[in-house]
């Protein structure tokens, strides 16, 4: 039996797309949380996220970083710094206190390996949030494994419409399955702690916890 080694050693022969999904995209929830804690304008978070991904992908195409997660967050941090300089607008919290860019990634990282049941539960919840028609289409296509044509016939839709439902579902699921990050009341304890510390620093020691 061969040795088992930790998997964050880059495997050079591995296709970069697979590496990227496993080592980078798997951190999306934390990345979004990280961006949202620093960047005030919520409607730009998706832009920042995608641009961070693009930068990481391009860099990794040259040579995969040894510590992908640290590299991902460093890239996000640099990107935000660049934007602040370029735009000369205060887009970040805490009154331009650059310490805020040094939010410890580990502090906002929940345990990465959540249970399989939790993953399934999250998927079920994400699925439940789709519009009814969308759910029917997905169900027939992916659970009952009908062809697109058969789904269209069964539901009395055109194939084009079935495709539209599926495409919309793909976008929504990608969002919902990782959306916990921005949901109020779902931010884990360590984050709250940092938030409180920050509030104290801003408003003085008399501020209640």
């Amino acid at each position: 039996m061969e040795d088992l080694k930790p998997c964050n050693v880059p495997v050079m022969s591995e296709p970069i797309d697979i590496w990227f999904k496993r080592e980078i995209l798997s951190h999306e929830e934390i990345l979004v949380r990280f961006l949202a804690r620093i960047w005030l304008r919520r409607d730009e978070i998706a832009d920042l996220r995608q641009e961070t991904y693009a930068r990481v992908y391009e860099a990794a195409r040259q040579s995969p970083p040894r510590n992908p997660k640290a590299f991902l967050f460093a890239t996000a941090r640099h990107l935000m710094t660049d934007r602040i300089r370029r735009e000369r607008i205060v887009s970040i919290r805490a009154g331009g206190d650059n310490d805020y860019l040094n939010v410890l990634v580990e502090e906002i990282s929940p345990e990465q390996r959540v249970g399989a049941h939790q993953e399934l539960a999250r998927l079920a919840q994400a699925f439940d949030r789709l519009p009814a028609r969308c759910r029917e289409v997905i169900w027939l296509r992916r659970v009952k494994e009908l062809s697109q044509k058969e789904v269209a016939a069964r539901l009395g839709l055109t194939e084009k419409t079935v495709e539209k439902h599926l495409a919309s579902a793909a976008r929504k699921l990608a969002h919902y399955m990782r959306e916990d990050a921005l949901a109020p009341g779902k931010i884990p304890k360590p984050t709250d702690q940092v938030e409180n510390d920050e509030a104290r620093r801003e408003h003085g020691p008399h501020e209640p916890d």
Partner: protein
Amino acid sequence: MSTDRTNQIEEAASDWLIRRESGQWTTTDQARFEQWLDASTLNRVAFLRLEQAWEESARIKALGAGIPGDLPPPPGRWNLTPFFETRQTPSQGRGPGSDTITGTRRRLAIAASILLTAAASIAAYQFWSGSGDRYTTPVGGLASVPIRDGSKITLNTNSQVRVALTKAERRVDLRQGEVFFEVAKDPMRPFVVEAGKKTRCGGRNEVLCTPGWGVHRSRRD
């Protein structure tokens, strides 16, 4: 970069993703798709992101395995499926502190569960020539198999596994499909799952081992 642009890219990425599996994908489509990917890294990462989520959400099939008829369960009614059922039984009557499940059944000190989607990269030859017990389900099938060590393996539709128990380890080769494990704790014998990559799961509580997503230890063979 504007938010509109991000949205446009995402829409285009989702169109490609769905069209690719529509069953009507031509070589012209493939060429245009590759052209689109190459046009900008933003396109590429947007596509990879959606593709990953889409692959991950394929596990909806596992959720739907026990549900009769052609309609999804109403929102919030997933407890009808076998996967949530196994979770709910212990958690209803017990506090979080009591892990031990005793009874006439096997004793599962900690029921570690693993959901694993197969990478179809193990050669058929290896699979069928190796030692151990083989279990398969047909398309539409669902089977729960108790293993001698006290673990339980649930095979979703169209799945194939081989299980080999030795003194040193408990090894499962997943050839195809999707399998859900409840692993009986045995510190002396790691529970090793192989699905293109090898993954050790012994002693871990609820490890998600889908290749490409959250594999915590692996090595390319």
